[in-house]
């Protein structure tokens, strides 16, 4: 078990240019332009306004969906965070889950949308990191087991039905995904299904979108996917899901949350965290601008949360040997 390390203050802002949203470049702002723009914005006053030398507030999120979807969403989120705090806010896109945790640990990311497991990992590595907000759906989150019709599998209601996946090909999402790997694997083990019973090695598609498309294309017969991303995919109608059946909805668990570094207020000014909380908790589905964001999050509101909510995730991760 690794000891949590005291937070190390972020020293530079040069990182902001590094992993700037790639598809965000379409909006015309290149990483370099953003870098050059650092510190030229004198309008920062509202939420306590950080020291000019600290640069923009870097936020990020685990890449659980396709990069386009993420950039659309977090572009909006960064804008709203900027309005609320009076700071310049940059969204840093990354290509894999652990990169968010690493960035959070070294202080290149101060506020991040984490999954259950990545949040636990980050809180373990940064002493005092706080989970401060979650969606209304996150306290009762579920995963879905989906399958191609060609697999011949039929929906079932009891967790023991998972043993029926034996002999079929199967894919997880990212290897440190909570709803795409951790909880599904735990439920499979609870049902008495070993990964060795599957046909071939389980795949790791990398994201929920990738899992859905892999199953829709028949590349894997069965996949485990986040229920909210599934709902969003069904609503969007961009993927042909006519050959995909939902086999099973798992029991509920705590999942995604916003996590902040303990030195957020110290570096970006007192009241920064409160300003972000106020914004998130105040999002109102009846306001068009707010609704746009809530819609992309697949939620109707954000509500408070606390670190203790993820103890169960920690225990499961420990049981599956997925913690350091």
């Amino acid at each position, binding site marked *: 078990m*690794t000891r949590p*390390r005291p937070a*190390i*203050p972020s*020293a*530079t802002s*040069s*990182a902001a*240019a*590094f*992993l700037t949203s*790639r*598809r965000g*470049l*379409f909006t015309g702002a290149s*990483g*370099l332009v953003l870098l050059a723009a650092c510190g030229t914005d004198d309008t920062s006053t509202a939420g306590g306004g950080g020291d000019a030398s600290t640069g923009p507030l870097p936020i990020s999120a685990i*890449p659980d969906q*396709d*990069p*386009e979807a993420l950039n659309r969403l977090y572009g909006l989120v960064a804008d709203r965070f900027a309005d609320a705090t009076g700071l310049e806010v940059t969204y*840093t896109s*990354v*290509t*894999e*889950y*652990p*990169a968010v*945790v*690493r*960035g959070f*640990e*070294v202080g*290149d*990311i101060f506020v991040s949308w984490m999954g259950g497991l990545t949040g636990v*990992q980050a809180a373990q*590595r940064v002493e005092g990191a706080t989970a401060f907000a979650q969606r209304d759906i996150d306290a009762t989150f579920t995963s879905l087991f989906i399958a*191609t019709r060609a697999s011949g599998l039929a929906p079932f209601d009891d967790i023991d039905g998972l043993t029926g996946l034996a002999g079929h*090909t199967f894919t997880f999402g990212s*290897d*440190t995904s909570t709803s795409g790997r951790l909880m599904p694997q735990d439920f499979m083990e609870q049902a008495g299904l070993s990964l060795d019973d599957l*046909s*071939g*090695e*389980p*795949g790791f598609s990398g*994201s929920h*979108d*990738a899992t859905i*498309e*892999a199953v829709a*294309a*028949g*590349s*894997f*017969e069965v996949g485990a996917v986040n229920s909210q991303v599934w709902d969003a995919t069904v609503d969007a109608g961009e993927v042909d899901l006519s050959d995909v059946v939902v086999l099973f909805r798992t029991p509920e668990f705590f999942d995604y949350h916003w996590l902040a570094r303990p030195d957020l207020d110290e570096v970006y000014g007192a009241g920064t965290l409160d300003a972000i909380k106020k914004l998130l908790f105040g999002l109102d589905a009846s306001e068009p601008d707010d609704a746009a964001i809530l819609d992309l999050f697949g939620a109707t509101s954000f509500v408070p949360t606390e670190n203790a909510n993820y103890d169960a995730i920690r225990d499961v991760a420990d049981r599956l*040997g*997925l*913690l*350091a």
Partner: protein
Amino acid sequence: MPDVRDTYRLPADSDRPEPPNLDAQRRTRPRVTGRQVTTRRLIGALVLVVPLVWALGRALPVGHDIVNRGGARLIGDLLGQALSPRLDGDFLRLVLEATGTTLAFAAIGTAGALVIGLLGGLVLSDVAWTHRPPRTVRAVRVVLRGLLVATRSIHELVWALLLVSVLGLDPLVAVLAIALPFGAQTAQVFGDTFDGLPTSALHSLRNAGATTMPAVAFALLPPASPLMLSYAFYRFECAVRSTVLLGAVGVGGLGQELVVSLSSRNWDEVWTLIAAVIIVSALVDAWSGRLRADMAVASCSEWSAGAAPEPPGGVAPRRSRSRWARWSALAIIPGLVAAWLASGVSLSGLTSSRTRALTGGLVEDLLPPKLPAGGWSVVGDAVLDTLAMAVVAMAIAVLITVVIAPWAVTTRAQGGAPGSLPARIARRMAWALARIGLLVLRSVPPTVWAVIALLALFPGILPGALALGVYTGGVLGRLVAESWESVSPVPRNALLRSGVPGALATLAAVVPASAHQLLTYTLYRFEICVRETAVVGIVGAAGLGRLLSENLNLFRFPVVSTLLIASFAVSVSSELLSRRLRRAIRA
């Protein structure tokens, strides 16, 4: 198209093996009986066949599914978009910008590698020291040699993953991930080069009272400079490929765009990006190849063997006045400045207190090394998987080479060339196709090949081996084709003139020599292939690389250090074995 024939050979530790030194052989070869030859061939055959059979058995376990039949549709989707790449202005601008980033990172990384190489090379070479180096220097050298070997035994991609933990999301990660392992390699090459140079000028200066630095600057560096310049560009060529590869860990540039488009399954974008990678790679290859051909530097392996026919000081400058070389040398400084500005790299990350604190933390995390859950057997299995993957990959690479490389040999005007115009055109077309084919195979990074292989195969040894094999096939094919160009046509022509049919003459006169070179290069690439298994492991194939990335993802640093030590051991022992075998076939 200019003849980019490679006249440049590097010593054993760089990317090419030394050519057999025939003179030395003739002098030292003992008498060999027919029986001894047969025994040796038999042992040789066993050495090749047994590992291959073992590796195939491991890669294709009985009773396990390997081919994922469902993947055919995604591959179909991918191929279906080949003719409709995404070409709108916005995306092309993005690709152009990413290309700039890739070139900038590669250029600065190469520059860093050369600085490390130059300093390291001077310390390692004997000639730079007036007398026998003092005891302290010798002790430092032993440590330095060990450090250099360790540094280059860790793959660029693994370096990048470790550096991110210390530097955070900083462009410096990409630069250092290139500069460190490449620098270690370069130091070795430069050290050997300096030692191979004629020392009379240096000694005269020294005897006339010059101090160390000026003597080295005026007597050692000038004769070495043509070689260093061509080596610099050769390294740049490799660095571009490596930078693309580093995209897998998100360090920006074409590689990262490729990873993002692949993970979104936007195949039209994937094709545009692959085209960009191939074009960049082709241009850089051609430039660096042209430079080497123009400079006609005596190969430094000849220098190190002391077999240079004339003092290189007299050979090299003759053609180093080529316009290409001059322009290339002139372009270096402004190119680096532009790269520096464009990439936004800053060295402040190296000295910041945060980096120091994080480095301390990482070292603390890494020590003491711990075994993964499952203990030695897990590590042992991963080591065997890694070796099996490398062996199967080499088999695939050799297959590709044998099929494509013969067409890629540039035939010089010679007596036996077929005359009719259509035949010549057909031959020329086949040559171009083969060359382009090899270029495509080696330009597309192995991570991308692995992602494609993983569409059709379950994770395991085979997809990794396939990905590495295809990529290595591109590299090996080119090396072997170029070395075949130097196979003497004289014996075959003699046979032809004495009435032996063409095919038979080729079989008797060309095949043995060609097979010998194929074997040498194959053994040599095997070493590199073992190291590169880390790359495909990271995208989920198998072996030490996969175990390493799993444990890095879970922040289990004590296990990571065990795996790094294991990789180091595997990579060093495969290098020693391959060098041993190469020496054995030369004898």
